């Protein structure tokens, strides 16, 4: 970029420019090289865990920077074994269900809510808008205990009556996976911004052609914001897949903790396999196999949808 001569025809200046351009290219190559090397270094856990999961315990305990599996294919049985026991499949199923349910609801809420705030007139619009905006200030993390107390008293759920007495509400109740996290105000505003940007003409013309509200939503609006929906899909999947807190805070009895989602189940199993007091001693390769199960799916999903994800991010989020 900086290679072109700026002005003047002096030989000296031209030469300087060439030298600088040459240096710059060198710097640039060095920069790229460094970024790629450091980038690979930053995903070290990924291939460490992969190699470790394919090693024998002895190989692993002698390894230094990276374990070198002698017979990687024989050790694939580690994966077969961890999948066969201890409820990993059960946990996978409930995690997938939770992602699917949450994704469906959040897409509907965000698209409809975003559209309503961008393109519709209704009473108290400004009040609702400012109300939702102000709830964004409530810090989710500090609400752990108040949430616990409230979920415990949640009316009409988990054996509670209307006043929230008699049962445990959403605490120690698997429905907590499916009824929380429906409304994400940030997402609503993201979609609102996208719909504001599209202009009225398209929706107006659909209406002239006889499209009702719901048909306009499903056949015009949702396809328009597909990149943003991909962003939601990735964020929700990654978030729920890795969710640890919901499990350990709200599902605390043995009957419910059997159903913990992957984010907590994999930690529990990794601890179990790495415990040296376990029958048969610690088996680190299996613990690392468990960690691979926890790490890989979000990365695969992201790599598959990466292009649309970046498109979605740059189309909507950045304008704000």
């Amino acid at each position, binding site marked *: 970029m900086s290679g072109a001569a700026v002005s003047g025809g002096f030989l000296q200046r031209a030469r300087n420019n060439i030298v600088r351009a040459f240096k710059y290219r060198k710097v*640039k190559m060095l920069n790229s090289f460094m970024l790629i090397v450091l980038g690979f270094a*930053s995903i070290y856990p990924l291939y460490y865990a992969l190699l470790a999961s394919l090693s024998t315990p002895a190989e692993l305990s002698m390894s230094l920077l990276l374990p070198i599996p002698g017979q990687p294919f024989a050790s694939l049985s580690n994966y077969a074994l961890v999948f066969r026991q201890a409820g990993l499949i059960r946990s996978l199923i409930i995690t997938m269900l939770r992602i699917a349910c949450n994704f469906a609801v959040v897409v509907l809420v965000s698209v409809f*809510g975003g*559209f309503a705030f961008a393109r519709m007139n209704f009473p108290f619009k400004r009040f609702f808008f400012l109300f939702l905006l102000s709830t964004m200030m409530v810090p989710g993390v500090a609400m752990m205990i108040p949430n616990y107390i409230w979920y415990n008293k949640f009316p009409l759920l988990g054996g509670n009556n209307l006043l929230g007495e008699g049962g445990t509400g959403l605490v120690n109740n698997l429905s907590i996976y499916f009824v929380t996290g429906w409304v994400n105000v940030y997402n609503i505003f993201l979609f609102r911004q996208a719909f504001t940007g599209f202009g009225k003409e398209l929706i107006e013309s659909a209406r002239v052609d006889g499209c009702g509200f719901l048909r306009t939503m499903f056949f015009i609006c949702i396809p328009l914001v597909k990149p943003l929906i991909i962003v939601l899909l990735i964020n929700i999947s990654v978030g729920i897949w890795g969710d640890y807190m919901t499990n350990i805070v709200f599902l605390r009895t043995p009957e419910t903790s059997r159903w913990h989602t992957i984010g907590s189940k994999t930690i529990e199993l990794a601890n179990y396999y790495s415990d040296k007091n376990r029958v048969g001693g610690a088996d680190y390769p299996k613990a690392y196999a468990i960690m691979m199960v926890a790490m890989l799916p979000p990365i695969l999903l992201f790599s598959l949808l990466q292009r649309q994800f970046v498109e979605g991010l740059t189309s909507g989020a950045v304008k704000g």
Partner: protein
Amino acid sequence: MNASITKPGMYRSKRAVREAAAGLAVVVPIFIYTLLFTVAPLIMLVRYSMTDYGVSATPQFTGLENFITIFRTEKYYSNFLSTFVIAVFVTGLGLVLGFLLGVLLNSMGKGKGFTRTLWYIPGLISMAIISQFINFMIAPAGALNRLLESMGSDPVLWTRSVFWMYFFIIGTVVWRGLGGTAILFIAGLNSIDPVIYEAARIDGAGRVRTLFAITLPLIRPMLGFILITGFINAMGIFEPVMLISRGGPDSATKVILYAIYDDAFANSKFGLSCALSLIVTAVTMLLSLVNIAISDKSIFKEEAAA
């Protein structure tokens, strides 16, 4: 701007009435859900922070006693301090390194997309799993100590050292968030008009000067936003503390959220936990207000003009 002023008498036509009904049908359920899942816990927070809930079966109103207990207990000061230290380092390092990474990634030619993805990957792995991985690495007979021994040094008891515990907690969080921050910065950098850079170059500004005189001032609103949201998020760091240091050694890295969790579930002092949560909530809300005040208020302006 589309005319969406809510004046009385504007819902006269049949179509406008129908639109108003549809809008309310969408927004009212969202409103009710938010009341149930965001506002109700806030009420619990304030209400139970003034009780001894958990200690006695039927919570008694105790006024400000919980807060007085907190202000008189030395360990809570140290909890707040370690939260602050971790948050400052996580935010500061994250911001500086994320910006650097963003600038470097942005100036890359070939392989930009690939490298960007590479850096984004740690952010896709859950905090808990990364913490567990670090935990395995720093175990007494873990990979890190084996490496030290192979070089002839003595093994280190990492979990007994305050410095190393802070190091690993902060390092884990910073490293995991780096790619995401860089991508935010890339978006910000690309929103700057290239003409400005061209003009600066013609005026003879060097690369360093361009960075300080043009790039940084132009992305300042973004810097503020990332700084404050980063700090708020950093105050909620929990998994690395729970899984790597368990608050140790000797509660040196016990952050406030971990103290809240402990007081509620280990010591069953829910009232006290709520009081602590209320303090944290107040601080973060204050920061959010600062954030709104300094960030560009387009979202409010737009709404006010609408």
